[in-house]
């Protein structure tokens, strides 16, 4: 396993990047981005076998990742940059005119690391399943990872995909739900309750793991490793990852209000004072 101290240090810098990127253009989604930092850092620095220096759209013999809840693009862009997919300085262009770092991830300008556009919710699980099926047809034993918001599970297409993957034994797929309980309009429970989410995925035929410590890097690595041991056994794998929206910035935690709002200058200083600059700001 990678040095945990080092992964924590990357996580702190990624959090700084997120709040700075969102602040710089006064738009974007900091809450979910901050909550998923450990997941992304674990995935790109420990779990996935991937090639960041020579990006190839087809990703033969690489593990692939698809972000279905595309609005948390800041965390993905930061982690991709720190992994070496593109220069960290490019993070400064986020959401600006002529940038490759679109508000929601896109492939049009060839940003390394992105294989499909996402933002309109509910589509990424289907894409992940398709990609996993192609890996099987190509005789690869690589894995496909997807990430989804919990609010996103209100989209019907997710359940079409859930049904398909189980019925067709797509067992080289590890999906994760960012189970933070919040969405734009408020708590998921109040907006449209997901009910017994574990029971739903199990009933759809998935192997389900729940991890309560989604913001503890060691726990996230452990649960992803456990998920890997469950692949290849005839069932798709789902991780319900409990995270805290806004994790790392005290005033952004415990509320849905920072789902899609940017901090002002004062709030930015406050946030940055809570996040150590470990690898140098972009």
């Amino acid at each position, binding site marked *: 396993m990678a040095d945990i101290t080092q992964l924590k240090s990357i996580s702190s810098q990624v959090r700084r990047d997120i709040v700075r990127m969102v602040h710089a253009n006064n738009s974007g989604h900091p809450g979910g981005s901050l909550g998923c930092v450990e997941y992304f850092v674990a995935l790109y620095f420990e779990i996935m076998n991937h090639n960041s220096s020579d990006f190839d*759209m*087809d*990703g*033969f013999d690489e593990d*692939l990742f*698809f972000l279905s809840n595309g609005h948390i693009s800041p965390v993905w862009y930061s982690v991709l940059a720190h992994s070496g997919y593109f220069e960290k300085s490019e993070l400064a262009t986020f959401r600006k005119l002529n940038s490759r770092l679109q508000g929601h991830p*896109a*492939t*049009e300008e060839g940003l390394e690391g992105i*294989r*499909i*556009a*996402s*933002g*309109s919710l*509910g*589509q*990424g*699980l*289907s*894409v*992940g*399943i*398709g*990609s*996993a*099926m*192609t*890996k099987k*047809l*190509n005789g*690869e034993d690589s894995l496909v990872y997807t990430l989804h918001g919990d609010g996103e599970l209100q989209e*019907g*297409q997710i359940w*079409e*995909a859930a*049904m*398909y993957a189980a*019925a*067709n034994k797509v067992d080289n797929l590890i999906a994760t739900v960012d189970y933070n309980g919040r969405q734009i309009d408020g708590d998921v429970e109040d907006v449209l309750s997901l009910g017994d989410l574990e029971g739903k995925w199990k009933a759809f035929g998935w192997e389900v793991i729940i991890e309560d410590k989604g913001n503890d890097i060691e726990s996230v690595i452990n649960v992803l490793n456990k998920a890997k041991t469950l692949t290849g056994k005839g069932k798709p794998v789902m991780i319900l990852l409990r995270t805290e929206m806004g994790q790392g910035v005290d005033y952004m935690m415990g509320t849905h209000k920072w789902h899609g709002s940017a901090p002002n200058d004062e709030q930015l200083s406050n946030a940055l004072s809570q996040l150590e600059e470990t690898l140098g700001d972009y």
Partner: protein
Amino acid sequence: MKDYPVLGKKDTRSGFGDGLLELGKTNENVVAMCADLTGSLKMGAFKEAFPDRFFQAGIAEANMIGMAAGMTIGGKIPFTGTFANFSTSRVYDQIRQSVAYSDKNVKICASHAGLTLGEDGATHQVLEDVGMMKMLPNMTVINPCDYNQTKAATIAIAEYEGPVYLRFGRPSVPIFIPEDMPFEIGKGIMLNEGTDVTIVATGHLVWKALEAAKELEGKGISAEVINIHTIKPLDEEIILNSVMKTRCVVTAEEHQIAGGLGESVSSLLCRTIPTPQEFVAVDDTFGESGTPDELMTKYGLDAVDIVSAAEAVMRRK
């Protein structure tokens, strides 16, 4: 006028099914997906011959389109099959984001387009699909006219890298395009040269356009007939060359006027050579149950309607 002997009668969807089967043999990257309409789409032979490359999505079209987009990553060329309304309006956002904007090599193959679906009625008779699909950047839109052309188009789109919408239909219609005629995406076909009026037709209306031209000839009117199978990108050259000669045009298609081939033609002409145009197409209404022939007559999509439109547009020169 040039004679096009009827080589037989077949549905265009069988051209798709036979083309797909041939692709299965020649291109191992071609995979097929269907949303519970394998028989209607004539995909059964492919499924039987290549079971490992056939994916039954069930009645879940959104997931099918998303999976198709994902399958392209790693080199597969997915051909999705379902009715035209379920291939477009039902899954427009999935196509827009996961296929068109992401520029994925997905071939969306749509049967039972238009009124000629017949008795099932308006719920299934999509007449807006060409408009929806041609509005999407990166999307190529093709509407072949008979069995042979549909088979050739099916084979041709596998060689083209990028999203394609291939539209065909249910009823048995005359085969008149020679089997060996090459299919070139984006290239119109001059079926009959004429001097008085240009008729630009696509899909099932192409044969009717030839019938109309014959009737017009009897009336001493020389009609030029152009088959536009690729609505986007439009073969501007063949249309402009023709209207420079005839100075008027009739467009004919099994689609709404809004969003159809006719609008593509008028958009081209108003920017280049403003030209009187008549539209043989459905005018802002839904279809209904009936036989294909009854419906084409009721909604004004017969050869006789093309003849009237030609005479009307010539008066406006």
